[in-house]
């Protein structure tokens, strides 16, 4: 069953974000857009998905020419009309996805896997979807202090056919307070004060696009995605899986700096970067 990927990068705040660069291990600079595409089509490896749709702001197509040339038909640029919000941005890929399930990655996150290339995380997510035959969102246990930044889910752990722990989602709250989280997002087996927060990657079942359509019509304006996913929970099974990696919110204050440091400290320049930090601290 072929799967497409939809990467959203159309929010006004993100307009310039994907054009920023990070230094890779080989000292080459790479745009964040390329990093995002590497997640699904890593160089020298089998692509994880059949093709990618990148949702960009209306009128920004020219800024992505290089990327388009590099990836050819594998990449489709989709312009979102007007700033209609996150759910609408995903919905903009409706024709691109057809009636198939699709992988969705948020464009303003940067990922590192605990081991190997970050595309391994995406591969695991897609495998989990195939195993469960239901929508799967990647999540990460996150301490409660970070709840103001993420959507979070509550549910019950189950074991998949391959022995992987998945969570059957029962509740979804967007940026909850710890008070609500404690009351409604309890997950057995998780450390106290930690909640399963969205990781920014999902594989959505074919039911999601029609649901978005329905809800966007009702909302008549910008709408968050998590509210709609709450509906999904009531309609069909919905799972979460913890992926062995780290996400960095590039839109947060010092988000890019943090991502760059994390990337550099994973590579051969680790010593050099550490020395640089020590020197800064010593000033």
């Amino acid at each position, binding site marked *: 069953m072929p799967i497409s990927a939809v990467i959203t990068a159309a929010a006004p705040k993100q307009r310039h974000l994907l054009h920023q660069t990070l230094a890779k291990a080989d000292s080459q600079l790479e745009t964040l857009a390329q990093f995002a595409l590497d997640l699904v089509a890593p160089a020298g490896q089998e692509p994880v998905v059949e093709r990618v749709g990148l949702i960009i702001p209306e009128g920004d197509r020219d800024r992505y020419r290089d990327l388009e040339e590099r990836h050819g038909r594998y990449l489709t640029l989709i312009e979102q009309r007007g700033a209609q919000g996150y759910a609408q941005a995903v919905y903009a890929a409706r024709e691109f996805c057809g009636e198939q399930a699709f992988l969705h990655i948020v464009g303003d996150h940067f990922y590192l896997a605990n081991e190997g290339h970050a595309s391994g995380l995406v591969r695991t997510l897609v495998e989990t979807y195939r195993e469960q035959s239901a929508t799967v969102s990647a999540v990460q246990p996150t301490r409660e*202090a970070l709840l103001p930044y993420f959507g979070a889910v509550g549910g019950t752990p189950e074991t998949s056919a391959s022995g992987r722990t998945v969570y059957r989602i029962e509740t979804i709250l967007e940026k909850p*307070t710890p008070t609500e989280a404690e009351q409604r997002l309890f997950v057995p087996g998780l450390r106290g004060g930690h909640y399963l927060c969205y990781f920014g990657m999902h594989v959505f079942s074919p039911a999601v696009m029609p649901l978005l359509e329905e809800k966007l019509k009702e909302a008549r304006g910008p709408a968050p995605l998590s509210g709609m996913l709450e509906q999904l929970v009531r309609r069909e099974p919905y799972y979460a899986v913890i992926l062995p990696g780290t996400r960095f919110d590039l839109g947060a204050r010092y988000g890019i700096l943090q991502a760059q440091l994390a990337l550099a400290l994973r590579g051969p320049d680790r010593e050099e970067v550490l020395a640089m930090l020590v020197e800064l601290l010593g000033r």
Partner: protein
Amino acid sequence: MKLTDILRKPEYRDEPFDKWVRGKEMGELEAEADELEQYRKEAGSLYDRVRALLFLSNLHQYHMVARSQGKALLPYAAVESIRSRHFEQAIGELLEARAGVGSSPALSSGLAAAYRGLAFETLAKQVRQSVRSFAGNQWMFRTGHWLDYPLRLRGELLGERPYPVLHEQTPVRMDLTHSAWSDIFFLAMDYPEGARVINISVDLASRGAGSGPRPPVEAFFRVIDEPVLRLVSVDLEARADMGTIEELFDFGADYLGLLKAAVIASGLVPSGFEGSRQALGEILYRLTGSRGLGVELVSQVNEIPKGSRLAVSTNLLASLIAVVMRATGQIRNLTGPLEERDRRQVAARAILGEGVGGSGGGWQDSGGVWPGIKLIEGVPAAPGAGSRGELLPRHTVLSGEIEPGAQERLEASLVLVHGGMSQDVGPILEMCTERYLLRSEKEWEGRREAVELFDELLSALRAGEIRRLGGLTQRNYDGPIQTIIPWAANAYTEALIGACQERFGEGFWGFWMLGGMAGGGMGFLFDPAIRDEAAGEMVGILGRTKERFEAAVPFAIHPVVYDFAINREGTKAELKRGGEALLSRKYHLMTTPGLLRVEAARLSEERRTELGRVAQHYPDLTAPLFERLFPRESGGEEGSGELDELLRELGFDPQAHERLRADYTANRIGLAKNILPANVTIEDVRPGDLARLRPEAAVAGARALAEGRAGVITLAGGVGSRWTKGAGTVKALIPFHRFGGRYYNFLDVHLAKTRAAEQRYGARIPHVVTTSYLTGGPIERYLAGSAARVSRGRSIGLRLIPTAADLRYLWEVLPQQQLDEQKQKVRASARQGLVRWVEAMREGSDYRANVPRQCIHPVGHWYEFPNMLLNGVLADLLEEQPQLEYLLLHNVDTLGASLDEALLGNHMESGATFSVEVVLKQFGDHGGSLARVNGRPRLLEGLAMPGEEVEFGLRHYNSSTYWITIDPLLGVFGLRRQDLRDGVAVEEAVRRTAQRVPSYITIKEVKKRWGRGQEDIYPVAQFERLWGDMTALEEVSSAWFEVPRQRGQQLKEVGQLDAWLRDGSAAAIEKMLG
């Protein structure tokens, strides 16, 4: 069956403890105590542990103390451990002592106190633990650094100028029946099936105030353009900007404790931050997203005085918590009423807040958060939860279930009042908990009756049968409530009920106890046809009855009659925006003068525009603002002229006062100087020092009584400082207990005993009641027409502001009872405030900042006998009854003191001037003791004791009851009977003798009342001379009688009443009354 079976086997769970104990021998009791001790350490269930501890405490206090024969003293280390709340350690020390020397009354009394302390501490910990682990509260104990701070203000509060004001309005709650305090946490969590209340949310207004009833509690929240956390209490007129975490967790420093508790319990600054020494600025930055912004939280209570029994403080706390939780998104609805889940969260946080602020409330108290009439019931907990019931009860709003029109009919019948009394219900609640856990037979039966009555009440309410409801609430009050706790009722309330019955007859449907103790908030149900008339007349009835009891009962305020309405929405909020973004009129009246005094250029934009809005919105504020800006000339300190007049009238000696003040400020006298010098040897008395009491002496004693040779002096100059915590009532006149259906005050008891003795011996027995300026008038009025004679006090002193050194000595050097952790923190911070207060008021200066009666003080009971010389009472007595030779002099609170013929006979045989009654010391006996001082037995006052360790080495405690032979005592003063009419000689004799006894400096607590029933307690210094020091005079010969505890025990505090009733003392007194 064993006591441990009650704990181990469910079928015995409700067996009464007392039934088991009845008829048991000391050996059996000891064996059972050992088994319980083992059990309580191993018991898995917390409540079983607590019950075992209370069983142990009761075994020791009421059974083993009386049956132990040993003489072992209380080890001082154990006393210290109890005082520091190291109860386990104390138990270990006492059991070790008992293993060594065997049981003794003193050891058992210590064990009783330690077990009891541990039981209540364990219960309190359990509630704290349950509150902390309540889902939604836990994170607040994990968050301890601003980097982890997870709350953000809602955008609606930040996005526009002026910053919008979030305004919460909350009703208070009335309690239709608490099923005999079934809403105490401990009880509800152990006996959820019996924990049921009917709780009604109400709006109020003082009758005749003009405005209709409205929610009495309000809270406001808004963003301000200063990076501070501003807390304002409008009704207490207090305001402070918090800059640091430390200031926020300092609860006793100002009147903002409740607001601080709300800030913490709402999660705005979670508990985890306590002690972290961080600046609040970083938290405010995370909260508001900007470095220049802060928040303001304001509380306001409209027209309800303290002690209303309407749970005002808990509902205010809940209101504040709700407004903050809305503002920080912890509650989804920014405005309007709350959803059920959020109400429960707010209630749980209010319980948390009460724990944080060191106060305590019931399980139904935040009822105002819910709408209308609701049934609140205990909920059985899941197995293995640690308690049988859950922390939070279930609330079922009944409004939809009850007969249409029933609420209106209730409103049309009820007259709600505040009787004016404000009392600490803490001891009552402890008694209630204890009796429940012991399943005391009568009380357990009462509880069952209350549970049955509850169903009837509920059915009457559902059917809207208000007349039946009135009958039932009255039955509840007359029956189970008073069966369980006799002191929940009082003479004042009974008089009010009696007056209503007399005046309104059939039209008065019943009394409704609003919870806690009677005398504060109360309900009276009337036929709707006369309800309005009755409400009007109640004002007069309350006023007249209060006047009758004024001297005897602590009133905090003048009684109030309310207009009220059932609140059908519960707590709700609105967002005030734009031109409406203002707080209450009272708030702006309080804060605007401060803003007007600042130069306009220095005010922020936000404040300047606010002034404009205030002017526009509250045009009637101008006149009162002028009043505040330019207050009228006031006549200096409160009632200063009146005080001087009173001092003149009472014969105050300004020269002597001046000398005393100079000595005090120069530190020549003071608390630390009270003690005997270090070179004095103090030892316990030897066996031969105590008189061997001969029963045969009773014959001579009886003869003397029959011949009219003995009389009684009751010392009644005191105002029961410990009984009412400084409220200034006349101790002798406090109607403290009902014997045979009638309330008796302390004086009634003593006079009844004298009357009984007169009948028994067929002779006239003179009875003198000595009084002070504080008690003289009321006692004279009370005794008008009685055979008893009043001796008017002639000596007063003017209180002084204590020195900071004395306060520190009192609090840091002298032993102090530790409180539980949170209360201890509150007390420590309040004490720091008091030290600042004495420094600001000038140490050692006259205390004048109170009503005149609270500024002066009686000068110790030494003067009470000399006053009888000075005012001619003794001379009169001796003229009327020349054969009078002996006097029994005792304190008004030593209820067991009586004209015992054997003791009188022994006194006569001893030939001593004084025979002093002493009792074997037990835990809690603190003060004057019998000691050998430099080899001579005498009474040593507590104030003169060089250390507590010395005090606990002395076996006998002074009961303050003296048998006196008149002529030798007159001799000590250098007088003879025939000199008593020579005023000059008497005055000289008294002055000379006074100089021979030491005068002590003491620190007393005095209440200052303000606002609507608010009370502050201040320490004041005063001096006193004590009668016991007469035994130190060389020429005074004394004999020492060891008497039973029931005879020598003094009732100083309300908390002693329960033990007094249960150890048989009350029954013994009742027998004496004849």
